[in-house]
């Protein structure tokens, strides 16, 4: 719950950068900072939204209205990022990340055992959702550091935003050790993590506990997903993408799985998923003016991510 007497908003301490009177270099640097901070905030919002969709920790069916609203938010962000070109940068970084990763079949099996996948899904190569990968591991960090070239502002963000969401994504537990090694600042204590950890038991202490909670989560996830109606089998995913994300079966992350609940067939990759969202979704936002006005609100995201 939203606590009383909350800490000061991050935006309070971070007013508009560099006032007038500075030289041109300074103001353009500030502009770059603002842009990069906006991108990071938007990325954080995307991560937050995907976590909300993925965490089905209740024993009852999740609220469909809430899921649809969050899914629409994800779609909006993805569309805007596609327009900005940020989307392409991310996907390139991720493909590099996955190519570098050491993945073994053991991981695939382990995760599937934990996830209690159906027989149909066993051994299938299902792409891992983009944001999960994007929010952890070095390459994503590199991307962020590229964007936050101005450094000071980016500093807070790069320490926090790549790691914070990953620690309570059920699928990350039991994944390759190479991913887990790169998660250094997992213990970033922010509101989001606390809130979700009490609900789904995720935390960074002890893989054993993580596995237990993962089993519990996926069991509930399966129960939850079973409630929705069976949908038509998805079109076959892009084989190139499949190969890239062959390490983990995390089909229950898929947006459509959350909405439809069934994972008896291999799902589309995250790119396909979000592409389909964009193709069916509303017309893209005009990013020119709307983004800037969002800064104030998105500043609040930073406060959450920076933590107490």
């Amino acid at each position, binding site marked *: *719950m*939203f606590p*009383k*007497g*909350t800490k000061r908003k991050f935006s309070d301490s971070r007013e508009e950068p560099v006032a007038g009177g500075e030289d041109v270099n300074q103001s353009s640097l500030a502009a770059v900072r603002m842009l990069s901070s906006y991108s990071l905030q*938007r990325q954080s*919002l995307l991560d*937050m939204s995907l976590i*909300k969709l993925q965490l089905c920790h209740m*024993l*009852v*069916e999740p*609220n*469909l*209205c*809430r899921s*649809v*609203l969050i*899914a*629409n*938010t994800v779609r*909006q*962000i993805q569309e805007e990022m596609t327009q900005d070109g940020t989307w392409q940068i991310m996907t390139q970084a991720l493909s590099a990340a996955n190519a570098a990763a050491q993945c073994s079949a053991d991981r695939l099996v382990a995760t599937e055992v934990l996830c209690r996948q159906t027989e149909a899904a066993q051994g299938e190569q299902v792409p891992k959702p983009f944001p999960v990968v994007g929010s952890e591991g070095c390459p994503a960090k590199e991307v962020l550091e590229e964007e936050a070239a101005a450094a000071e502002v980016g500093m807070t963000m790069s320490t926090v935003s790549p790691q914070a969401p990953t620690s309570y994504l059920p699928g990350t537990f039991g994944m390759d050790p190479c991913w887990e090694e790169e998660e250094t600042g997992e213990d970033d204590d922010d*509101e*989001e993590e606390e*809130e979700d950890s009490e609900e789904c038991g995720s935390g960074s202490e002890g893989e054993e506990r993580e596995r237990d909670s993962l089993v519990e989560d996926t069991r509930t996830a*399966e*129960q*939850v997903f*079973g*409630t*929705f*109606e069976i*949908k*038509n089998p998805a079109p076959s995913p892009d084989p190139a993408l499949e190969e890239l994300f062959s390490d983990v079966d995390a089909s229950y992350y898929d*947006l*459509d799985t959350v*909405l*439809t609940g069934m994972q008896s067939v291999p799902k589309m990759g995250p790119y396909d998923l979000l592409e*389909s*969202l964009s193709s*069916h*979704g*509303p017309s893209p*936002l005009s990013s020119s*003016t*709307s983004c800037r*006005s*969002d800064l*104030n*609100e*998105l500043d*609040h*995201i930073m*406060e*959450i991510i920076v933590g107490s």
Partner: protein
Amino acid sequence: PPILSRLNPSRWSCGPPAAEGNVQDEESDTRKINNSFLRDHNYATEADIISTVEFNPSGELLATGDKGGRVVVFQREQETKSEPQRRGEYNVYSTFQSHDPEFDYLKSLEIEEKINKIRWLPQQNAAYFLLSTNDKTVKLWKISERDRRPEGYNLKDEDGRIRDPSTITSLRVPVLQNTDLMVEATARRVFSNAHTYHINSISVNSDLQTYISTDDLRVNLWNLEITDQSFNIVDIKPCNMEDLTEVITAAEFHPQQCNTLAYSSSRGSVRLCDMRKQALCDTHCKFFEEPEDPSTRSFFSEIISSISDIKFSHSGRFLMTRDYLTVKVWDLNMETRPVQTYQVHDYLRGKLCSLYENDCIFDKFECVWNGSDSVIMTGSYNNFFRMFDRNTKKDVTLEASRENSKPRAILKPRKVCVGGKRRKDEVTVDSLDFSKKILHSAWHPQENIIAVAASNNLYIFQDKVT
């Protein structure tokens, strides 16, 4: 003077249920008693959290449903000449377990027993009828009084034990004797297996023969007498669930036109349907949606535009919608924009990201009209609720809390400080308690009596007319 300044609370919490005629076991009685008087709401059992409040059409009865599946009905005391100042207080009349938790074995999921909505039927005989629903099943309950019972049976004795026929030496005719008043609640109909998704609304038709139940994607029409059939009249489920971008959030029948119903969506639109036009009301007659203000656009715009409640005015001329930050009044003859928009708590606009993060942005607030459609009321956070006078354009913020309302005390208007210096008694936005939300409230159909649910407490406020 406007009524808002003279509201007079006579506070009630959900006290122990009346002893007579409860269809309820001892344990839950005890639990209710123990928890109702705790000062700190946080320790209260979650099962006691009130999830719906509704007056019956005469205002004589007030029903509440809670998360534990119970319904508690309050009845207004008859005014007595000897104590005119005790003006019609509400006492517990009946308590019963409406819905029980279920387990869906096919999906391995629990079905919550929480009562989502209660709707009364107009009284047609001595008994009272109400519809109550959880996520999946609607039930019709009959609440009736018994103050007489037959005594003097031949084949069983006074305790109900069967007598040995060989001991009976004479016959007698049973006679009706007066007894203590007993209030019985019996389930007369159970309407089940018609909803795949969670039921969010029920609405009784003005024809008093049919009603609709609405879930996220469908609206079903029932006859009150028939439980094994329902007719689907609205279906917005896409062929491919991946294409789902909009759900139904509420639906209501027009108060006078039995062929007209309205349903709201998560996208901030309301559709008015005429059942005479065609059997399936997927195409609407009227479409109410306000164009978005581009200057306030953000990633949260759609979420805050999602309508959480709709209510027709008693007159049937207007429709009220509640979204996260505003209440809007629509004239049914004008679809392009509302005739009035009221800001409930606009100071939250700058906090939408935090409210998204802690899920408060998905809270579904209800809204109500007063009997004459001149005042509308809705809830907010910190146990605040707001009233807007449509004629004078005045509004007031009041608080429902034990600390601030002693019986017979007058409610003091509250104010949220939105910036600058905080005056005495003002509450800053940052100190608002977002766990204390007024989602459910009701207004007496004729008089200025309101019922406000704050977690597991029910507050009834009356306007004292001097």
